[in-house]
């Protein structure tokens, strides 16, 4: 049924529902009127090169929201005061633009906004997804700017000044400065080191040698004290908290080499190794920098919570309605929540009947019916009825806030996972430096005239570069390959944990399943109609509904147009097609449109009929994600134990577990229960991978040894996970485990090689059989072999 992917948003197109747009003289197919409008806007403003320059879009990116939000409200003065800062006759605001994913997006936004009259500056940061706009309030309002962004297909969210602070930017600036100091320092010191090595072969004036050493010292000092400061700070934190990580041995190695070299410079000792110090610091800093970039790219901690909640709320006061900024909401306020809006606070329903989607908070796939007196929670979505609620808790007191705090705590309580490989490397670096000092001392006593050259050979031949590079090079290569395979690694520990994992825990809704109902079977009771026609009729009726069930009926053609549509909350929709009155919904509702049916029925069957009789039945289920079965089979073949932990009810959980062949499953889990399941597994010696996408998974994701969150889920889950899974397939989970195991194998090969090489070369050099030039060649070759071996990972899984 699919006619390829949408030219604009890359979602699959239904042939029956295809739209076309002409770009650069060619007809392109798009999936919906919204994408058509955006593509035409981009073309007509002369910016079609956006399409040529952008990276391949993730499906759904840039697709405009179906229900255009009301932007004019943001033109009001109190909204402006809440989101913008006035400065010298102009105002400035920071806007979060959801759906931005590559550099071409930021160009498109900047160019479009700069053409809007009144906007004097628009800075876009594609990493933090933020647009900083400065404009003249007399020419254009905040609402107009938001509407311009929405027209381009982005999902704009103005940010309050206090949440507009960008800690990522500050972190990136500091990291860039450190990286520059380390890299410039490395280049300079390596240059002087070449001079010093050349001097060893050709002879060099003692004054010049001394001078070059002093210069090396001068350049190395800021590298050690500025660029390497995070390692020392991390080591100190490790000592204070009695959980030393890899920063401690790294710091000892840096400090020992630096102090030793400084001593040798002052006293005229046999050799300095400032070059090793700066190189070690440079590669570590580079690794941390790349890791930070991946982390920033995938998550935005500060907006993770705020994007779940609405920016404005409708308050009911003295019979009237008033839209106010969400932060003016007080406990006890009476709020109106329209269908499709998210609920801004925890509270009690006081008027109206509706169904609410709490899947991200509880993991329950089926929307819940709510009547007067029922509790509603912040962050859930009001699906189909107007409702009024009384606010009881706001902000961090809500269920959402509690889960968020719990995941922070779980992260700190996560079992200390010290990377074995880095530890080994750092200890060996220290050992080599000690051996060099001993060898130098022994030869100085035995044969003072040869002591210098031999100690030099020992130092050069055992240069710790290969060891220092063994792990970071392999991890960097693995990280690069993983991102090509649609996995963003945001925590360097993830790879070793993935390789050692023995158990995988899956969340159900949205992770193993699609998280939205889909038609699994259709039964037609009328001979004059077939399945396709019935689904066309149903789709035409559902066009007015905001209920997620409506999305299951996506196949629409233009022949069936429903009129006089009526939505009965919790029951179904009715409408007239070609002169006949049709109904779609619960059995009772279809049989008699006016019947107030009892709520809380099993709503997985939807009936289509006229007032006389039932014509068809659609069975809906939260479908299992494509590839899930194969992926789980692969994971089992890799020797991993699988388990399912879900907040959903026993019945759907049992069904999914049975159809996927998972023997160990837990249903009805709160976030605390899920954490307990993980802790129990960890205490019995398992290394656990958690895969989950909901807000309720966040604490478990943070508490597992390593965790994977799909990018389509809640932002809070992604901020708590070590790896973010792009795309729709679960398949990369199995690939990640395989690649992680391969990475550890390569790290071990690298370490083994470096140790064997050093163990062979060291005695030869120590006994004086290796001239410095051979030592220099040996050192370079061993580093090169380690790097080339690591680079094999970048081709992992490629044909």
């Amino acid at each position, binding site marked *: 049924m699919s006619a390829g992917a949408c030219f604009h948003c890359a979602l699959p197109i239904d042939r029956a529902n295809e739209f076309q747009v002409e770009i650069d003289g060619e007809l392109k197919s798009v999936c919906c009127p919204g994408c058509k*409008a955006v593509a*035409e*806007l981009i073309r*007509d*403003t*002369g*910016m*079609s*090169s*956006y399409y040529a*320059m952008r990276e391949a879009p993730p499906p759904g990116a840039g697709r405009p929201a179906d229900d255009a939000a009301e932007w004019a409200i943001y033109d009001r003065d109190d909204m402006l005061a809440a989101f913008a800062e006035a400065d010298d006759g102009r105002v400035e605001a920071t806007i979060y633009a959801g759906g931005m994913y*590559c*550099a*071409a997006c*930021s*160009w498109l936004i900047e*160019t479009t906004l700069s053409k809007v009259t009144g906007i004097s500056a628009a*800075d*876009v*940061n*594609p*990493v933090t997804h933020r647009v900083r706009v400065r404009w003249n309030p007399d020419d254009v309002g905040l609402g107009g700017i938001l509407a311009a962004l929405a027209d381009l297909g982005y999902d704009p969210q103005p940010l309050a000044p206090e949440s507009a602070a960008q800690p990522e*930017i500050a972190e*990136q*600036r500091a990291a*860039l*400065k450190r990286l*520059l*100091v380390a890299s*410039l320092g490395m280049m*300079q010191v390596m240059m002087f080191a070449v001079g010093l090595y050349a001097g060893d072969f050709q002879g060099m*004036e003692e004054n*010049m040698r001394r*001078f*070059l050493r002093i*210069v090396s010292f*001068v*350049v190395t000092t800021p590298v050690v004290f500025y660029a390497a400061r995070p390692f020392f700070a991390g080591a100190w934190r490790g000592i204070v908290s009695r959980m030393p990580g890899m920063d401690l041995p790294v710091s000892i190695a840096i400090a020992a080499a630096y102090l030793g070299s400084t001593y040798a410079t002052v006293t005229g000792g046999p050799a300095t190794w400032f070059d090793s110090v700066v190189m070690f610091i440079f590669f570590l800093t580079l690794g941390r920098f790349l890791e930070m*970039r991946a982390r920033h790219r995938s998550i935005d901690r500060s907006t993770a919570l705020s994007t779940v909640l609405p920016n404005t709320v409708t308050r009911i006061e003295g019979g009237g309605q008033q839209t106010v900024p969400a932060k003016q909401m007080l406990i006890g306020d009476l709020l109106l929540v329209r269908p499709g809006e998210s609920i801004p606070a925890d509270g009690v329903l006081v008027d109206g009947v509706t169904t609410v989607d709490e899947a991200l908070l509880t993991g329950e796939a089926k929307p819940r019916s709510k009547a007067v007196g029922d509790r509603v929670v912040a962050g859930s979505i009001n699906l189909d009825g107007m409702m009024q609620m009384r606010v009881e808790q706001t902000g961090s007191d809500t269920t959402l806030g509690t889960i968020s705090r719990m995941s922070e705590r779980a992260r700190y309580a996560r079992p200390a996972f010290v990377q074995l490989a880095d530890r080994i490397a750092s200890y060996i670096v220290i050992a080599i430096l000690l051996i060099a000092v001993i060898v130098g001392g022994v030869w100085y006593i035995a044969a003072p005239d040869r002591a210098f050259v031999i100690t030099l050979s020992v130092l050069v031949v055992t240069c710790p570069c290969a060891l220092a590079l063994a792990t970071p090079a392999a991890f960097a290569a693995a990280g690069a390959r993983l991102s090509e395979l649609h996995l963003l690694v945001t925590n360097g520990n993830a790879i070793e944990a993935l390789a050692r994992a023995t158990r995988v825990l899956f969340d159900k809704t949205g992770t193993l399943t699609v998280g939205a109902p889909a038609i699994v079977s259709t039964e037609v009771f009328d001979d004059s109609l077939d399945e396709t026609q019935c689904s066309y009729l149903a789709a035409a009726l559902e066009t007015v509904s905001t209920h997620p069930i409506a999305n299951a009926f996506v196949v629409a053609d233009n022949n069936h147009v429903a009129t006089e549509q009526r939505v009965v909350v919790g029951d179904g929709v009715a409408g007239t097609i070609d002169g006949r009155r049709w109904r779609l919904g619960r059995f009772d509702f279809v049989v008699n449109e006016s019947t107030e049916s009892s709520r809380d029925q099993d709503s997985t069957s939807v009936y289509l009929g006229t007032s006389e009789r039932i014509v068809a039945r659609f069975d809906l289920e939260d479908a299992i994600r494509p590839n899930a079965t194969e992926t789980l089979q692969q994971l089992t073949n890799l020797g991993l134990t699988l388990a399912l932990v879900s907040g959903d009810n026993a019945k759907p959980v049992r069904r999914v577990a049975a159809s996927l062949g998972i023997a160990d499953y837990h249903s009805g889990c709160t976030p605390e229960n899920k954490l307990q399941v993980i802790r129990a597994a960890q205490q019995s010696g398992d290394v656990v991978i958690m895969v989950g996408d909901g807000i309720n998974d966040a604490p478990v994701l943070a508490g597992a040894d390593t965790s994977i969150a799909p990018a389509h889920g809640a932002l809070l889950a992604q901020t708590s996970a070590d790896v973010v899974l792009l795309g729709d397939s679960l398949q990369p989970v199995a690939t990640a485990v395989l690649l992680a195991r391969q990475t550890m194998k390569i790290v071990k090969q690298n370490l083994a090689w470096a140790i064997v090489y050093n163990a062979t070369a060291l005695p030869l050099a120590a006994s004086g059989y290796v001239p410095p030039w051979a030592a220099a060649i040996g050192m370079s070759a061993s580093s090169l072999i380690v790097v080339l071996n690591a680079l094999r990972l970048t081709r992992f899984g490629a044909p």
Partner: protein
Amino acid sequence: MNILYVLIPLALILLGVAVWAFFWAVGSGQFDDLDTPAVRVIMDDDEKPPENSET
């Protein structure tokens, strides 16, 4: 070779100036976006944007 005693300190001073200039550039936000500038030069408005577009 004695010229090195002059040239190397001179190089270090230039290095210091370069580091200072980079720190200033980072501080003024010029490196906050590391992705867009790489493609910006090849992105341009279409040569002839339609004058009276209907949409």
